[in-house]
């Protein structure tokens, strides 16, 4: 019994790391630009399909695809911010909802047209074998996601702490006018922040594609789960994303064990709804 619980717990933790990474891109956009991107999950799936295409043409390992997908997604984020979000922010609080929602639909149906509704997966064979450490068997796909998440998070932490652009990204949301007065151009910072956010989303998307099968319409599931992570952990907070990811990961894993795969997602969504109701500002606070 303890073995089962321990296994579930470990897998929840590992999965949580992956979800924390997935949600982090959403968190950056929301924390810095104050916009929640409904198309977030669809961008992740887009990255997975991109990796799929690259794999088909170049026949390389999906992990290596990240090296190509990441810069592409950075560019997508940059353009997204420059031509969409920038236009929409001043017009009123509801515009970003409608625009990102429409974008979500466009991406989903574009993917449907190009790649059909068939199930896809990026899982290479080496991730299908089982691991056994101390009589625990963590899922290798989740483990990969977790380790990658830690690496990416560390890199981002260093970026925010040590580089000028990273510091500017922390300063601008705190006091945009002061930042302007010392010469920081907030539009430029926002463009790069969006690029960074989608770069992270892209990496997460490929990892998700390696862990789970995906369809053109899998996007909304990931944005809802990411939203759950963000709500739980607070906006723009690295620590918060990890904690939120952990909770969602455990909820999914235990939910799957207790209620079966049919109700797994439903259980998770209900957990998120309950948290939204009880503590809309999340565990670490931070209003939108």
């Amino acid at each position: 019994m303890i073995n089962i619980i321990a296994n579930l717990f470990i897998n929840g933790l590992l999965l949580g790391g992956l979800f924390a990474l997935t949600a982090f891109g959403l968190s950056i956009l929301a924390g810095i630009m104050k916009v929640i991107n409904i198309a977030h999950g669809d961008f992740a799936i887009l990255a997975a399909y991109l990796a799929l295409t690259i794999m088909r043409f170049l026949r390389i390992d999906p992990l290596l695809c990240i090296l190509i997908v990441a810069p592409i997604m950075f560019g997508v984020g940059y353009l997204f911010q420059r031509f969409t979000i920038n236009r929409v922010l001043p017009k009123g609080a509801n515009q970003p909802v409608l625009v990102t929602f429409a974008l979500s639909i466009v991406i989903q149906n574009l993917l449907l047209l190009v790649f059909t509704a068939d199930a896809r997966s990026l899982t290479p064979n080496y991730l299908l074998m089982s691991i056994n450490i101390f009589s625990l068997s963590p899922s290798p796909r989740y483990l990969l996601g977790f380790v990658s998440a830690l690496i990416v998070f560390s890199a981002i932490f260093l970026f925010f702490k040590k580089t000028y652009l990273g510091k500017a990204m922390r300063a601008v949301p705190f006091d945009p006018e002061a930042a302007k007065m010392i010469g920081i151009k907030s539009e430029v910072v926002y463009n790069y922040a969006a690029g960074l956010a989608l770069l992270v989303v892209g990496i997460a998307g490929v990892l998700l594609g390696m862990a789970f099968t995906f369809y053109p319409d899998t996007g909304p599931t990931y944005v809802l789960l990411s939203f759950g992570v963000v709500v739980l952990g607070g906006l723009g907070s690295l620590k918060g994303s990890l904690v939120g990811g952990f909770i969602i990961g455990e909820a999914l894993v235990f939910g799957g064990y207790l209620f079966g795969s049919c109700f797994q997602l439903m259980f998770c969504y209900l957990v998120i709804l309950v948290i939204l109701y009880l503590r809309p500002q999340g565990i670490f606070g931070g209003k939108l």
Partner: protein
Amino acid sequence: MLEVNSIDVFYGDLQVLWGVSLKVNRGEIVSLIGPNGSGKTTLCKTLVGVLRPKAGSIFFIGKRIDQLSTPDIIRSGISIVPEGRRLFGNMSVKENLELGAYAAETRKNVDDALEWVFSIFPRLRERQNQLASSLSGGEQQMLAIARGLMSKPRFLILDEPSLGLAPKIVLEVYDLIKRIREEGVTILLVEQYADKALENSDRGFVLENGRVVLEGPSEKLFRDERVKKAYLGE
């Protein structure tokens, strides 16, 4: 050094400054006084490019700057310590200082600039890794001024540096201002409390309702009847 020629500044459709002109020569400390809402901060914002004048021009060391972007203006050598300090409370003292050099040439040798600034503000060196929001009022003002100096400006604008500070700290701040002048920086001092500003400056301008109503050597303004009645509480 700085020449403001008859600028009109608007917030949207609302005009805030009418034909404002002023001049600051190299090495001077010039004060700009006037009541709340007279447009002092608007003028400061226009000088650094956050706002643009709809009419008139601004020249700095012979170069026209009123249509330049803020980073370009900072690179020309102007820096501002905003009203209310406007520090980044979520970041450390050192990080706030580093950001002061963001747009400037000094960014490439940020450590040199830091050393220079720490020599003027030793207390900041002690607290360099502390969160900016954890400093006292006086220390925060020091930090704000220090941040303004990180770009090694030739011209520094101080918007209400004594606001909300205890008298003892205000004296410290003004000593610092004198020290900064000694380091070769020309200063525009914007204050609501006219007495300290006029005591410590060479010349002054009085701004009321968006217009310059008086100007002259600080000594003279200090003794001027109108100024005394309105601002020096006599």
